Structures are given as C-alpha cells and as structure tokens.
C-alpha cells in the first residue's frame, strides 16, 4: 500500500497574550494509505482540525514531518494540490453567489474544466437548487456545496472535516453512499466526524486523537477487537442459580436487573452447556461487542458522568509524555460519589 498521508511527530502550539501558550497538537502521528476510507476521531478541541489545517498548509507546524501524496507539506503542497479535495470545518461561501457560480469560480481559479460543475452538483444532490443564492441555503445544503467544491477537482485524496454536519438522516446516508462509491473508484478518503456510528459504517481504518496525541489507530475491526471483553448477555429463568453455576465453571458474571452479563468467554456454547447440563435453559444469548462510540469514550476519557459537566479539555492525554496531565477518572468518580 502507498502512503497517501504521512504525519510524524506533529507539534503545534498557539500563543496568545491573554491565554499564553496552548498546545493543540503534541507529537501526533497519522498514516493514511491509498484506497482507505480513514476515520479521524477526537473530542472537541483535541487537535483534529488543527492537524488538518497544518497538513493543508493553513497553519504553520512547530515541528514534525508531513507529506501528502508523496509531497512534503507545506513546501511542496502546490505540486499536489490539484489532486487533493478538502473541506475544513464549515467552509464559508459568498452569500450572494449561486451554488453554480461559486463552483464555477473555484473551477476557473483552479484551472478545472467548468463541465465538472454540473457533475458535482448532481453528485451532491444540488442540481435543482444550483441557481439559488447560497445565503438562502440550509446548513446541510451548504455542507453539500462544500463537498461539491472538494469533489470538483476529481481528487485522488479527499479530506473532509465533518462532512455530515447539518445533514438530515437521508443526507447522511447519501453522503455515506457517496464516500463508498468514491472509495470504490479509488479515491482515498480521510474523514473527520463526530458521528461515530457513521465512521464505523463507512471507514475501514481509524485514528483517534486525544489532547493532541494519537491514542488508537488501525483497522476499525482491529481497534474494536482490542476492546472486546468477550461478554455475553444471558437471560435465564433462575438467574441466581445460573450465577452460581457459571461462577463454579470459572466465568465472571455480573447481575443486572433483567439479565446477566458473562465475561471472558470466547465460545457461547460454554455458557449454554454449563447451564443446560443442570436443566437451566437459556432464553436469550446476545454477544456484547464494543462499538466505536464506547471505545472512543473510553480512550479519550470523555464518557459522560451524571451530574459532572465535562469540560472541552477534559479528555485524556496519553501517558508517557513529560507534560502528562492524565485525566483522573477515579477522582472524577469520587467527586461524583461525594456529590
């Protein structure tokens, strides 16, 4: 596989008179290979957008190396920019222009044939509204226009920051289908989103960032597998007796009001056999697989705790860093208990 995006040890800090120095990205690494639909996840303020902006030459990195399509960024970015389509956060368009005029101007500025304008308007579903002024567009329509502008160049690499922002459910599904069809045609997609279920559905690879550092990366199924505790949800007629039998068989059982959760069991037959041999018949047996949301919340330390408002910078910084300020979840839980 060819590396399409490579980031190694990216550092970026912002300085302001009032707030002093704020580290946004702290030694971050990212590798996106050709043909991937790569999800890029992180809590608010974790450094996702700063990373994308640095990669696209919009902010100056303080350290680290970056390359896009084999060209070092930002120095040689102009050489490959014609092959990269990107939207960063919610792009702003000139409100008095129609969508068609907006895209035509971008096509003219970028030396792209204007015939592409109709094609991308069709692709993002704006064909029939293309003669309306952008200022009358809904957030979702503006987002579609942004994606259209990124597609205009017929890119080999598509970098999309929150493309589903403001889209309705049908729009989200359309966007998902669009990403898949683009990937099928050989386009590499780097997708930043907060809609974790979408990322899980669309992406084959994922990188998770927290407090400016990478906390997980790899194939989505592999990342999820790393958090699989082999748990099963079990319903039986006599739960108390079932707990005794399963515990005697060496299984870890947690009792819930409606069901039991049995952990550390690779094969479900072990549960059914253990109970069945004693005349207890299993009514329901459901595998409890981790989803991306639970993994994300655990990795970034952003799992909501009742009555404890979470601050945007309250996510986990990976251990091992000299400035480690690892969020103390125990302390947070104690705080909750005290409350």
């Amino acid at each position, binding site marked *: 596989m060819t590396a399409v995006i490579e980031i190694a040890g990216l550092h970026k800090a912002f300085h302001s008179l009032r707030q002093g120095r704020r580290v946004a990205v702290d030694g971050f690494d990212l590798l996106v290979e050709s043909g991937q639909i790569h999800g890029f996840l992180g809590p608010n303020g974790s450094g996702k957008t700063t990373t994308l902006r640095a990669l696209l030459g919009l902010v100056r990195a303080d350290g680290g190396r970056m390359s896009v399509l084999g060209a070092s960024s930002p120095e040689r970015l102009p050489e490959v*920019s014609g092959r990269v389509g990107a*939207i960063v956060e919610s792009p*702003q368009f*000139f409100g008095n222009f129609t969508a068609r005029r907006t895209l035509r*101007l971008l096509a003219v*500025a970028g030396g792209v044939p204007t015939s592409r304008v109709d094609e991308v308007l069709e692709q993002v579903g704006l064909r029939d509204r293309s003669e309306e002024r952008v200022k009358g567009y809904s957030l979702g329509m503006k987002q579609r226009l942004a994606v259209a502008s990124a597609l205009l160049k017929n890119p080999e690499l598509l970098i999309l920051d929150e493309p589903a922002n403001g889209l309705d459910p049908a729009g989200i599904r359309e966007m998902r289908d669009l990403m898949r069809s683009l990937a099928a045609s050989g386009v590499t997609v780097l997708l930043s989103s907060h809609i974790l279920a979408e990322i899980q559905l669309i992406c084959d690879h994922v990188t998770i960032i927290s407090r400016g550092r990478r906390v997980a990366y790899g194939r989505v199924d592999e990342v999820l597998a790393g958090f699989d505790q082999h748990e099963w949800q079990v319903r039986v007629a006599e739960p108390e007796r079932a707990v005794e039998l399963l515990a005697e068989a060496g299984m870890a059982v947690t009792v819930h009001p409606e069901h039991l959760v049995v952990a550390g069991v690779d094969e479900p037959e072990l549960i059914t056999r253990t109970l069945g041999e004693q005349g207890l018949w299993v009514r329901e047996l459901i595998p409890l697989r981790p989803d991306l949301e639970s993994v994300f919340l655990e990795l970034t330390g952003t799992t909501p705790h009742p009555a404890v408002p979470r601050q945007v910078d309250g996510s986990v910084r990976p251990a091992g860093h000299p400035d480690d300020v690892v969020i103390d979840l125990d302390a947070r839980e104690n705080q909750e208990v005290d409350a």
Partner: protein
Amino acid sequence: MNLVRAELERLTARRFVQLMVVLLLVAFAVTAATTLAGSHKPSTEELSRARTQAAEQIAQLEATHDRCLAIKAGTVQPEEHDYVPKDCAEVDPARMEKLPTTADYLSGVFVFATEAKPLLYFLVAFLVLFGFLVGASYIGADLNSGGVVNLLLWRPRRWAVLGAKLGTLLGGLLVFSAVASAAYLTVFWLIGQTVGHPGLVNGSFWASLGAQHGRGMVLVLLAAAIGFAIATLGRHTAAALGTVAAYVVVWELGARLVLQILDAARPDRWMLSSYLGAWLSGEVEFWDNHACQGDTAGFCEGLYTLTWRPGLAVLLGLAVVLVGAAFAAFRRRDLI
C-alpha cells in the same frame, strides 16, 4: 490568470462595490443635474458685455503697470492710492499667472474651464474613499469569512493568492477610475458646450488637468493599497477604518494641537495630510512660525513649500511599507 479572472468576478459581484458605484452615479447625476439647472447658455449681449469687462480689466492692469514704470522712471509723481512695488514686474500683466477672461464676467453660467478642476477634485476624493473602503473590505471580508482559506485549499500559494487579489483590486480600480473620470469630465464638457460656456480650453489647460487627473489616479491606487494592507494586517475591514480614524484623531488633530502648544517648528511637515495635499495639487505652502522670529525690520515671508516630489515619496513609501508588512504577515500567519 485564471485566479485573476475569478477574483475580478468576485470583486465586481460584491454588494459593497456595487453600492459604492451606485452612490458615485447618484452623486454624479445630482452634480450634473444641479449644474444643468443653475446654468444657461450666455446670450450674445452677455458675452459681449463680459468680453468688454475683461478687456477693461486687462487695460486697467496694463495702465497700472505702465504707471509703475513711469513712477520708477521719475516721469510721474506717485499719488496716495498708488501701489508701487520694488519691482514693477510684480504688476506686469504679461507675467501674471492668469489674466481676466470673458468667463470671469459671466454670471449664472457654468464655465467648464473654471469648474473642471474643482469637479475633478471632488471625483478624486470620492474615488480615494471608494478605493480605500473597497480595498479594505475586499480582503477584510474574505479573511473574516474564511473565503481566503477556501481559495488556499485550491491554490496553496499564499503570496500568489494575496498578490492576485491586490493586483485585481488595483487593476480593476484603475480601469473603473479612468472610465468614471473620463465620463464625468465629458459630461461636464458637454454641459459647458451646450448650456454653459467652455471657457479658455487650450493646450495648457488640458495639460494641467491631465496632470491633476494622473496624480488623482495614483492617489486612488495608493489609498486602495493602504486600505488592503491594513485590513490584511488586522484581518478585518474594521481594522483599516479604525486605523485611519485613530490616525486622524490622535495625530492629525491631537498631535498637531500639542505641537502648536509646544511651538514646534513646521508641524505640518509631520502630517500625512500635508504630503497628500502637496501630491494632489502639485505644491502647497505652509506658514513657518519660526522663520520670522526676531525679525522686526519689516516684511518677512515666513512660508515654506512642499512639492509633489516629497508628497509622492512619503505616500508611496507608506504604501510600500504597509503592503510589504501585509504580505510578510500573511505568509506566516495561521489561518484558523
């Protein structure tokens, strides 16, 4: 070239630009209409009377000069009301900058030769304001709204993008200003021909008007470049407006007052407005309050002159420094 084409379309499509053009057209129409309403074609009698008055005035000037020469030669005794300068050349009509003309004695008649310069000053003042505001808002709004970021995602060459914007602005403004001023002067020339009087419109008149026009166009471009540069540095249109307002209040008004209180020599030398006036009008004279100190002997001409050369040097230098700073800042800036 593609970038410039796209930028030109964006520039002309801006509501603010369109509004300023409409304002210019309205001001243009109002000025032309009031001129038309307040002028009439002079009758043969009016022209004849004015010619006679002008000729009488010239004859009187010549008589004064002749009398001066005669007094100097001792052939005539001076009377109480006679003005006798050291050198009679001072009252020589042949050396006067402007002799009385027929147009000076036409009442209620628009005379193109007399009114062209003030009219052109008005147009230049409007275009300077137009250039500054359009220059500032063109980049200020784009920086503020994220339009520049969009463009940089397409063309990640910061200097090329900013240069294309500035070049498009200055080029577009120059063409617009040239066309507007040509149309403006043509309309008033036609008014002078049809319902007024053309006045003395000779080669030296057109040369003088052309020079004034040229200096005005340069000033329009400098104002646009300065507005563009300050808005780029401040990332906002308001930065340019605020800087100019602060400069006028703090320096042109406040510092001038302080310098006067301190009795500083030639305070006008430190004011941009002095150089602006010098550039636009060719030269300006200022009073030097230190020049005649201790001179009790008699007449002291305590004036000093600023010509267009230092005027251009100061204004151009300021524009170059600001534009250079804007490009340097934009190259290194984090666009967030």
